């Protein structure tokens, strides 16, 4: 039971403003960025270990994901002609600025890797692009956690230490799901292993975040966020188990497992997004923790 918290507010109105981002655009962007970034690492691994079909499939999937994610970002701005202002400055204090530059480097690399793999031309360029995308991919997959937590949104900022690991794990789950879905079964052993690791890591990160968040953790368990995150757990666990047990011999099982992992990862991102919005809209989650902090610092001072 979460203890009842006393708090006062101005006619129950929120203290901070909730993000005005559309869930489809921004939570979708978190998911697609993760799929692309972790996918590029998987593609490079597959290429190095002689799994050519998985490698090509993942390169194409990463290019598609990063293109869609950029489209989601531009769509959220509303006026596409304003997008270039993103690259006016490079500001380390702005995760969105850092991310824009990261994408500006990663996107073309992922594109070149996919195009050379499909066309079979310019293998040297392809190898360099594959390596660059694999190097930047993990950053693309995890910086979005900083993007979310560098806000006053209680459910995101309060989890700023754990969110990057959750996002990295969720990205891994998505990419391994895609590899199960698209790659031939005899090449999918690493993807099955990665899915299992991701499920474990996601569980650990979620529990750690909930412990640290205290009463704010209820925003991850209630309402829309709660439903999405429960679905996410079920889907990723199902996906990983199906992949692990049957993925090596049954093509349909691999497809089911892969789809479940992808859906699970998407649910994690949309659920996290919804928890943030819920925590911003209810003044309780801003006031109660801050009041507790203020009281304890008063006590320390006196």
């Amino acid at each position: 039971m979460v203890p009842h918290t006393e708090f006062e507010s101005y006619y129950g109105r929120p203290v901070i403003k909730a993000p005005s981002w559309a869930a489809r655009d921004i939570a979708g962007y978190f998911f697609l960025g993760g799929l692309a970034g972790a996918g590029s690492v998987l593609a490079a691994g597959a290429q190095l270990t002689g799994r050519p079909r998985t490698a090509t499939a993942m390169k194409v999937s990463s290019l598609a994901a990063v293109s869609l994610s950029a489209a989601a970002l531009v769509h959220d701005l509303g006026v596409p002609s304003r997008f270039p202002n993103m690259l006016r400055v490079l500001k380390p204090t702005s995760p969105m600025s850092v991310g824009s530059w990261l994408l500006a480097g990663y996107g073309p690399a992922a594109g070149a890797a996919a195009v050379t793999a499909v066309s079979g031309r310019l293998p040297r360029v392809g190898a360099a692009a594959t390596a660059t995308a694999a190097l930047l991919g993990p950053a693309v997959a995890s910086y979005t956690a900083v993007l979310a937590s560098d806000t006053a949104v209680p459910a995101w900022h309060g989890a700023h230490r754990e969110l990057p690991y959750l996002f990295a794990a969720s990205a891994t789950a998505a990419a391994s799901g895609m590899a199960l879905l698209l790659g031939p079964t005899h090449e999918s052993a690493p993807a099955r292993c990665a899915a299992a690791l991701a499920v474990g890591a996601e569980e650990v990160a979620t529990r750690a975040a909930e412990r640290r968040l205290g009463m704010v953790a209820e925003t991850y368990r209630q309402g829309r966020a709660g439903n999405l995150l429960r679905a996410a757990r079920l889907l990723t666990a199902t996906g990983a188990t199906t992949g692990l047990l049957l993925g090596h011999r049954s093509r349909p099982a691999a497809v089911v497992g892969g789809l479940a992992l992808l859906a699970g990862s998407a649910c994690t991102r949309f659920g996290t997004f919804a928890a943030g919005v819920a925590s911003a809209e209810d003044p309780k989650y801003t006031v109660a923790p801050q009041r507790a902090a203020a009281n304890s610092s008063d006590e320390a001072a006196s």
Partner: protein
Amino acid sequence: MTDRHLLSGTEPDLARDAGHPEPPPRVGFFTDTSVCIGCKACEVACKEWNAIPQDGLSLTGMSYDNTQGLGASTWRHVAFIEQQKPQVPAPDGRTRLPLVEAESDPSDGAGGELRWLMSSDVCKHCTHAACLDVCPTGSLFRTEFGTVVVQEDICNGCGYCVPACPYGVIEQRPSDGRAFKCTMCYDRLGAGQEPACAKACPTESIQFGPLDELRERAALRVDQLHAAGVDDARLYGHEPDDGVGGDGAFFLLLDKPEVYGLPPNPVVTTRDLPTMWKHAGAAALSLAGGLAVSFALPALLGEKRKGTR
């Protein structure tokens, strides 16, 4: 040199650290809510001077407050708090007006007397302004007066500043997506004028001036009120070492900040940014490491199987 790029804490030389070589003294607002009469002259003056569009008509039922809060088209907002306060001391010999159907015995004054708290809220022009820190385009900037201003022509409507502000001040205008908030009348300051809202305030509840002076004046006022028996009087946002490094607009309140819709202990989120980047780096490495293990493990197991065969 070391405190030039501080992300939180005290920041004595704000404008110079933001790149203004010869800045004038930092200016700000001291809003003394104990004398506010809720006339909303500030709201109106701000709208008029800055030609801000209307936000539509609504009746909220929240006391006399139909403005509701700060936003893209409301840069000053007067809060009206209607309270039953039992501890208001009953002055001797004064005729008591039955404002509400008194359930209480007016002679002991304990059952709750109606009181109104009014307070004109505004952007705090934080020393460490999260809105400015997170803006990816540089459209939010620090002026030579130490205030925080958005440049409309550069803002691209990304909306990042909105959830970053710990006070819920800045907002995107739905009609065009860009972000707007109080500029502390940057145009008037440049011309040596005081901001329109302060100019219009008939009770001097909104006081404008160099921040150091205002802080001294505020300290005197709070002592005066305590001496007069108003024990609830307190300053809010004036401490230079608080979570946002002190506010360029601070307040004298007669109740807890959250009663006015203000956060009790706001912290600039960028204070934790180094930690966030550190964990994101570690998470990126663990992603790469996890996938490396996933490729190594089947290979090793495969080797073994071959070996034992």
